[in-house]
């Protein structure tokens, strides 16, 4: 039923106009106050092997999914910066570093293809289904394996320390940087 609706919608739009149009079906724009310190690409590879009376088709695709690590600046309070003007030091407690998914490549890169007999190449719908399977698998993997987020947030913390130490140093202060704990309420991971 869903497919029929999409096909009907598709036919209607194809017949009605051939100009490039990008009117949104749904749009959500939100203001945020994120300071991003690191990003990471995770490559996923999918192999598809199909065989029947008419031949065999074997194809491998890969694509990247992106994550980033940030702190929410809106939760940084004046109390989180403790200046000591005599010693020229400052103790900074930054908000927790949060990791989130930011999207994936628009293209499934064809790594390998072998088609025999009367079989044709995989079409776009089949490739999209493969990517959907890989996407679900990756989200589960990120959920179950803390290594991905831990690696990214560690890199982000190092960068954040370096950055804040540098800007306070240019202002004549020696900074020591800490981070607040990452409680479940602060975990906005898109999974």
């Amino acid at each position, binding site marked *: 039923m869903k497919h029929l609706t*999409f*096909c009907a*919608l*598709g*036919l209607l*739009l*194809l017949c009605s106009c*051939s100009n*490039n149009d*990008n*009117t*949104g*079906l*749904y*749009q*959500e724009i*939100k*203001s*945020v*106050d*994120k*300071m*991003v*310190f*690191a*990003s990471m*690409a*995770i*490559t*996923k*590879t999918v*192999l598809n*092997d*199909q065989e*029947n*009376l008419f031949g065999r088709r074997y194809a491998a695709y890969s694509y*990247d999914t992106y994550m980033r690590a940030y702190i929410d600046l809106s939760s940084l309070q004046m109390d989180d910066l403790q200046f000591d003007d005599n010693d020229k030091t400052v103790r900074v407690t930054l908000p927790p570093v949060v990791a989130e998914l*930011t*999207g*994936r*490549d*628009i*293209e*499934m890169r064809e790594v390998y293809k072998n088609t025999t007999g009367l079989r044709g*190449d*995989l*079409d*776009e719908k089949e490739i*999209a289904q493969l*990517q*959907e399977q890989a*996407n679900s698998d990756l989200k589960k*993997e990120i959920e179950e394996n803390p290594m*991905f987020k831990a690696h990214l947030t560690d*890199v982000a913390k190092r*960068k954040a320390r370096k*950055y804040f130490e540098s*800007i306070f140093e240019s*202002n004549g202060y020696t900074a020591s940087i800490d981070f607040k704990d990452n409680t479940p309420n602060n975990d906005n991971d*898109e999974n």
Partner: protein
Amino acid sequence: MRIKSIILLAVIIVAGIGVYLFSSNSKSNVLIGKGQISKVETMVQLCTIDFLNEVPVKDTIDNWELFGIQKQRGSVSFDIENLKVESGNDTVIIELPAEIIEINESTDDNSWQPVDSKDLRTLRIAKAPAELYTRLKQKSIENSKAQLYQNGVVARARKEGAQSLQALMEKVYRKPVKVVDPTPEGAHCDEYQ
């Protein structure tokens, strides 16, 4: 003669059922490899707008009319690692840098649904080559970027970026900070008009 026709028809039907059963009994395996970290980058970027778009994408490419529905996830950010800062006695003046717009396909479920394609040479609905859909999606991303400028989203991101940067730097410098914006409508606005 009539019996022969009936027998022939029966043979064709049985053969057809056989071929159908044999072909439908195909082996299909999908193997999904484990995710591998392929790149890690560091940066200092201030992100002021996050967005999620679900757009119908349609276009004519190489005599094919293509149509699909895509969910895009993106953000508008500013590289604040190397800011232009002028520190006076009373006020610190900072210039807001150019915006960075990133748009990817979302990782939400069903973020890409190729719906239909038509071959304009034969005027038939047919399966278009996969690479044409990639070009379709690339054009759609560019269209979405242009819309961010036209709808004033980039201008809003810059305004909020200036406010946020001012608030952060006032905490750091402990004196008034003024953030000046040389291109309030967007540093790359002209490219997308």
